């Protein structure tokens, strides 16, 4: 065996687990789902090939309204996570000293050590009518009747922002980290105000981080299930909930698979639009971090 063959073999072996992972757990299931989505049910144990499931989605306002709702709320969550996360990331990357940095990263990380479910229950305990916030507000006399903070869209947005925050902060920190402090100093030396420096120097430099953070956060939010279900109220439907309902409650795997593909297509479209508008590329953002 020549040196080159050994090199090739090593590469192949190293690559094999990843290739198997992609093939067995991503590609194959999607082919199966695609097959299901293109199958129309006619009667018990009778199926026909066609696009009926997609037509049904298009004809039923409830479905696409929910998809649009999920999309717009996910965009809102992404924007809020960016607004909240950027100052934190900037502080960690540029202002904090070495030890504070570690501590702050740890603080961001700790919530992730607890399962999604427990975190959602935490919010429920805080926000419910007889919960911590409502009763403390009553105790200090700010309100005189219990107030219900749970079961509405605002709660869902808060819960989601909290869940995804770390995924916004990490790419931002790693981009801002690479920025030379002298660039900021130069900005001030040339007479720029704080706002100008932020707008013309820091943000353009951090753009790849901002975009990659936004992509990750948006995808996570649009595909989340637990938080919207547990914190949402009687009017808040989330698209993933609909997919679950189709698969499990209604035994309608065909429609469920169709919805899954539509969600994938929709989020991909939004990400593509975002990349176009911010003049970034996938290779320069997510792949970089």
């Amino acid at each position, binding site marked *: 065996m020549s040196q080159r063959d050994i090199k090739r073999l090593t590469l192949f072996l190293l690559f094999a687990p990843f290739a198997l992972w992609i093939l067995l757990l991503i590609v194959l299931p999607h082919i199966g789902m695609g097959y299901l989505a293109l199958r129309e049910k006619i009667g018990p144990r009778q199926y026909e090939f066609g696009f009926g499931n997609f037509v049904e989605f298009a004809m039923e306002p409830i479905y696409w*309204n929910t998809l649009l709702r999920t999309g717009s709320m996910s965009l809102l969550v992404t924007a809020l996570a960016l607004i909240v996360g950027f100052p934190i990331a900037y502080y960690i990357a540029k202002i904090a000293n070495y030890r504070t940095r570690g501590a702050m990263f740890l603080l961001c990380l700790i919530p992730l050590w607890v399962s999604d479910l427990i975190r959602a229950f935490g919010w429920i305990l805080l926000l419910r*009518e*007889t919960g911590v916030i409502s009763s403390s507000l009553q105790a200090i006399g700010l309100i005189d009747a219990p107030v219900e903070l*749970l079961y509405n869209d605002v709660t869902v947005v808060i819960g989601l922002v909290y869940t995804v925050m770390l995924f916004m902060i990490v790419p931002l920190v790693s981009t801002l980290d690479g920025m030379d402090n002298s660039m900021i100093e130069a900005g001030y030396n040339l007479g720029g105000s704080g706002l100008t420096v932020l707008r013309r120097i820091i943000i353009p430099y951090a753009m790849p981080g901002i975009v990659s953070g936004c992509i990750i956060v948006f995808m996570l939010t649009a595909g989340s299930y637990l938080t919207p279900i547990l914190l949402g109220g*009687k*009017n808040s439907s989330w698209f993933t909930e609909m997919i679950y309902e189709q698969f*499990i409650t209604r035994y*309608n795997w065909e429609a469920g698979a169709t919805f899954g593909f539509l969600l994938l297509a929709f989020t991909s479209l939004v990400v593509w639009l975002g990349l176009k508008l911010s003049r970034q590329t996938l290779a320069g953002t997510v792949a970089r971090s």
Partner: protein
Amino acid sequence: MTYGKMTALMASAAFLGAVALPGAAVQAETLRLLTWGSYAPEEVIQKFEEKYPDIDVEVTFSNNEEMIAKLRATGGAGFDLAQPSHDRIYAAQLEYNIYKPMDLSKIDTSIYEEKLLDGVKANTTIDGEVYSVPHQWGTSGLMADKTKAPDFKGWGDLCDPQYKGRTSMRLKRTILLGTAFAMGEDPFAAYADLDKYQAILDKVVDKLIECKDNVKAYWKGGDDLSALMLSGEIVASETWDSTAFRLYSQNPNIVFVPPATGALAWIDTFTLPRKGEADDAAYKWINFVMQPEIVELMSASSGGTSARKGGRDLLPADKKAAVNAAFTDEDIANLQFFANIPPGVEDMEGKALEKIKAATGG
């Protein structure tokens, strides 16, 4: 990204574990149960394994819909005994062929309450073959806090404006059926004529959309319902009787209220998945858990009543008190047993529920 790598690592570790495990237990036969949360208490499993040391019991907890989805995904493989409700056998078998017929000679049928056994047999007979026998039964109905909602009597009261923002329900088929009964319809009779059933459903949907404003939140499981009720955030709700009985032991003001039109009764069954591999062990389990002393343990854990003759007498004391506070003999005679769900109805009901959830009118 490290996050992805971590998941990959964990998943492959789990995969290796799953491959390695069956080899370790070559000797013993395994009974793989697919059942409800409280239907296989640890104590019962221990006693079973003491009596049959060569059988290992593995339990997967689930609910009706997920049981069918799991069996459907594998064509009925992966489990040796399942416990869906009696109305979930017929259509699921016709559509997906996931169960296999039972050999009743292997079960001691003489101990069963005849009404329940015959009912389940009638519901689950396909081409002359019986697919299920009953295990436990219970009801869905209402519960109310007597001190705050003393006049609570029927499904319709959930929409009574005097309890505005103080009631709850689960957005599943039970509330559709209950509301239909409260409006004077008989949805089970309409199962035979799906156009008529759709007309009833449309009326029910309008009613429940109008009612949305009255509802504080839709509950999703026994835990959040208990929290809502115990904290006093709601005064009345649609409920499973077992949840109401549990709450009664913590706050005797909370009682189960059989609706005036009759509580809706379900029977959970024993059913064999089509590709089950341990039928003998499954029959042993069925006969084992129907013994009086095991029935007591089971009822204490689940709150359901055994399908054994005299099953109500085998309820633990606190549950018996709760049942007696809730049901008169008249209420028992008034029970509405869930009728078989014919193919297609799930889809109609699912659409109806989606409409209610998506409506913003309330």
